[in-house]
């Protein structure tokens, strides 16, 4: 299967290991992975700030890079949700997948050669969870499900621990993290407190933006807890 890897801008610049793990994992699973070289960003930072009217150039660049692919896969629920909801091209909207949903719904993997013998705290990113429906949500009266936990269940040795409020937002929120700095940080600190109560070694999620925010707080606190994108665990042999 031919897959285009979408690497969100901030992952490209600050978290290349997440893109590397995505690439390696997809290749291991038999995909022919293409990385369009002129890709930049999905346009969400502008759109969520009220400047969707300024994303035409960004959208066109995305289309130029990706319109030739039936499967566009990215390791970021938030960016993928933005593309699905707001990208002007219907072809793009219908072809883009968040990597966990691609693994469970398209590749339908049932086994992985991965091992990660650690206590991990699961972070539910809002756009992945409520937007892309990667898992059931506590607000709804619905049957519990979780694509993230299904995948982590294939990894040997991993111990999943959930915070007391299983799906409360971490407070990143795009430009919210700086325009509403006080609330954003307080929300992040409160998430971390619940993970600390579970004595986790890693906070793991499917959105690097949430993880970047919590990592910033953890490091300021001098904490030993680290953050990891779920693909880094799934690719960990």
């Amino acid at each position, binding site marked *: 299967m031919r897959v285009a890897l979408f690497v969100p801008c901030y992952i490209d610049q*600050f978290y290349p290991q997440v893109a590397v793990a995505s690439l390696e994992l997809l290749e291991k699973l038999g995909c022919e992975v293409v990385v369009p070289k002129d890709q930049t960003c999905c346009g969400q930072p502008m759109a969520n*700030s*009220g400047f969707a*009217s300024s994303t035409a150039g960004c959208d066109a660049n995305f289309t130029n890079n990706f319109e030739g692919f039936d499967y566009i896969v990215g390791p970021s629920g938030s960016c993928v949700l933005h593309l699905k909801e707001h990208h002007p091209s219907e072809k793009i909207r219908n072809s883009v997948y968040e990597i966990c949903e691609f693994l469970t719904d398209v590749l339908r993997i049932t086994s992985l050669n991965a091992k990660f013998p650690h206590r991990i705290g699961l972070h539910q990113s809002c756009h992945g969870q*409520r937007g892309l429906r990667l898992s059931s949500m506590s607000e709804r009266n619905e049957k519990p499900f979780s694509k993230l936990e299904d995948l982590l269940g294939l990894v040997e040795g991993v111990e999943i621990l959930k915070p007391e409020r299983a799906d409360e937002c971490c407070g*990143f929120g795009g430009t919210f993290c700086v325009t509403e700095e006080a609330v954003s940080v307080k929300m992040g600190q409160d998430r971390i407190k619940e993970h600390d109560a579970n004595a986790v070694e890693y906070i793991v999620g499917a959105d690097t933006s949430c993880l970047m925010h919590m990592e910033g707080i953890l490091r300021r606190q001098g904490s030993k807890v680290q953050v990891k994108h779920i693909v880094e665990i799934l690719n960990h042999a």
Partner: protein
Amino acid sequence: MLNHAEASEKFIADAERTDWHDETLWFVREKRDKASKVLPEWEALREHASLIKDHTLANLHDYLVAFEAKAQANGIKVHWAADAAEHNAIVHGIIAAQGTQVLVKSKSMLTEECHLNDYLANKGIEVIDTDLGERIVQFRNEAPSHIVLPAIHLKKEDVGETFHQHLGTPKGNKDPQFLTEAARQHLRGHFLASEVAITGVNFAVAETGEFVVCTNEGNADMGAHLAKVHIACMGIEKIIPKRDDLAVFLRLLARSATGQLITTYSSHFHKPREGQEMHIVLLDNGRTRQLADPKYKNSLKCIRCAACFNTCPVYRRSGGHSYHQPVAGPIGSILAPNFDKKANADLPFASTLCGSCSNVCPVKINIHEQLWFWRQDLMAEGLAPAGKTIGMKLMAFTLAHPVIYRLGGSLMRRFSGVLNSRLNPWYKQREMPVAPKASFQEWYKNR
């Protein structure tokens, strides 16, 4: 006036109180979860309620006219108000005709929206709010911070001090039972003496011309049953087609609001009793403007349960007053710009767009999507804070040109140290990510 971010920072400075506020409202959210999850048909009920409201809004004119005719036939006097000024003048006219100086009022967010208390005070008429929480904030000359729990920003110590000052309770007494009894005695005198009672309206039934008022304290009933004149104030969106529809809404309202199965009192006012005057004031005040915009129309489905407040991680940590509007929280943030875009341009940004609000909403308002739409509309009107527009255009330009993006990214990583600065709001309480030597694309080129 402080904007939401500034007011929140002040609120959060008291970390202990912020935690208490967050935990108290989360407890209410959890009660709501329990009450909703015992009903296997919960999601179907939400859908049903949403469809009834959609249908009603699509036929609002007809239902309002039908309600007016039925209500008049029942002996209720019906008044129409285009805006807050008209509403207040109508209410004042009715009170003035009685020569009343002091009157009782049960909870009505609509009268908060119209600033009726201040208006009447200027005319020499004192309003006694009879909802306990509302009376507490009224004593303190504050606005309600929550539409169901108006004094939720206050602790029992605060209430004890307020009652000590205004009701003469012993200083330092913070026993909820004792303080409630003091309020009860204080309010009883006003209930008995008041010739006019104002109430809000939760639902008005077009089929029958009756209206329903929900309270837990029975204060609306105490006021209305004892007074010679009952004035009910409602927004035109409170109309529902049939009495049967209450079977849907009353089940959703209290479960969503507080996790109760039903409000303690759900009182139906059908016609005035012998010798009583009953008035109902129907207010537009921008609602038809909201109705005419397909993006925002369904915000009018709101039944004011405040479930979106209780679930909102931002509201719980910033407090209701940070929204500087009578209706705070996520729903307030999509209603407020309709009243005044410039004054409320900050509110649609007081959200991470996490979407929890839309998923607790008993009438399925797409609140987080409307927040996003308001962001676009407000920025298009030039209401961005200084520097934001230029910053956004620069970012959009960079991200539209791969060569400039790669150059900019490489410079940013090399000189990322300059971001470790007090001028960077990220850095105030968080470390910056450690910049890697090579971007993924650079690594991939040499793979």
